[in-house]
């Protein structure tokens, strides 16, 4: 199946670390709103569908044993119990991705299937991802490029993913905790025979975002232009593999963890999506 650019564009919104359930996640609503605003403010009409990619229930299922254990240990002390369970929920999501467990594979397979469902129906698609979700998104895009069935050089109708947006990504961090490399550097898959077309990867980051800087206290990153940790770590590799990695340093009036969640309300993300899909 080939992409038909006259059909509705599809956007998949991939969330990051969560403490809720799939049903509570509103990443798709946020992206839909940004896109609608961008189009309506410019008085233009384009057809699109935004779908969320949710994997929190898969993570929760994998952490069930630890959550039961936490309940048992903290029985009679609900506040401590709540704290411990939240900690397990959050750190468990990160460990799952870092250790590349069978749960992580399950998540990647689900995302790959969701992307290919759109592709097999002829829709162009862009992936927007946040925080930990950027790792799954990058892995799946790389995986699809390595698959010989897709990405036939400059022919963008053979591209199941037309571009990637990452927001508040920890991909630039090199953290080693007791021998576990938490965000190990990914190898970037090259698109063979692409002379004019590059895989666009737009990375949005806030200098005060602790997930981007790796500084728990949220101290700002010192920048050169728009090159943050992700651009420094992946810039050379992406250039060598027919990718276009563009960093975008943003501000939000927020600090620390609130800077990490503010991307979902940044109108520039909506404008960038419109450009990537139709511009």
């Amino acid at each position, binding site marked *: 199946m080939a992409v038909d650019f006259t059909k509705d564009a599809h956007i998949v919104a991939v969330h990051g670390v969560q403490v809720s359930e799939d049903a509570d996640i509103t990443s798709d609503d946020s992206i839909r709103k940004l896109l609608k605003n*961008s189009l309506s*403010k*410019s008085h233009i009409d384009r057809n699109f569908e935004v779908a969320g990619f949710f994997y929190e229930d898969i993570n929760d299922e994998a952490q069930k044993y630890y959550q039961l254990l936490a309940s048992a240990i903290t029985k009679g002390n609900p506040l401590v119990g709540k704290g411990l369970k939240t900690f397990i929920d959050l750190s468990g999501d990160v460990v799952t991705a870092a250790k590349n467990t069978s749960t992580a594979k399950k998540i990647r397979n689900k995302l790959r299937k969701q992307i290919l469902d759109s592709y097999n129906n002829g829709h162009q698609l862009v992936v927007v991802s946040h925080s930990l979700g950027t790792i799954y998104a990058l892995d799946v895009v790389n995986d699809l490029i390595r698959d010989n069935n897709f990405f036939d050089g400059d022919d*963008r109708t053979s591209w199941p993913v037309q571009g990637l947006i990452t927001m508040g990504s920890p991909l630039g961090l090199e953290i080693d905790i007791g021998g576990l490399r938490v965000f190990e550097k990914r190898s970037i898959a090259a698109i063979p025979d692409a002379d004019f077309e590059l895989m666009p990867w737009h990375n949005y980051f806030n200098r005060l975002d602790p997930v981007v800087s790796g500084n728990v206290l949220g101290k700002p990153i010192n920048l050169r232009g728009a090159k943050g940790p992700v651009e420094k770590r992946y810039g050379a590799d992406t250039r060598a593999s027919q990718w276009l990695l563009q960093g975008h340093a943003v*501000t939000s*009036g*927020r*600090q620390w963890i609130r800077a990490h969640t503010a991307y979902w309300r940044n109108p520039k993300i909506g404008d960038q999506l419109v450009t990537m899909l139709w511009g």
Partner: protein
Amino acid sequence: MNIKLLTFIVGVSVFAAGCVTHYRYESTGMVTSSSATESRALIYWFADEGGLWYDKDQAVLDSDVTMRVCGGLPKTFVPFGEDPGNLQIRSNSGDLQTVRIEADGDVVPLPEPGRLRVGEGTCGQIEVSRKQAVIKDLIVSVEPEIIILCKNNRDPASYPRGGRYKFAAVTRTTIKDDREPADFCNAE
């Protein structure tokens, strides 16, 4: 126990909020669409100013400037070249360069539009006083010029017609909640 925890959570929240003021910078102008009609356009970007939670002053700008065109598709000017980088629209898939900039700043059509590799060509730039602008040049009251160099046959709304466009003086607004730029299409 509960009160201590609550105090801690409230303290951390206040602490983390700091006193940063969020600003939106904007400038509006008229551009010519590919169908030769005049359209309103707006460029915008954001900035933070104020004190961080640990009492350090902070004044930072977004790295790039976004342009919205009434009836057209948005474009982003990103810093390119030596740090801090001149603001440019880097070429997108299917972009064709239609005009070039002469040494004296005049914009002249190319005999044949040239196909550009994604990200490797310049399809637009911002100038202040006839010099390529970096983000810090775009201060309040400056009147920027936007130069468009490309078209895209896949979607005629992709770029305004190649040329040089004078924009109005840059303004700055303090943002409380809604970060969306003004409704420039309907502006008087």
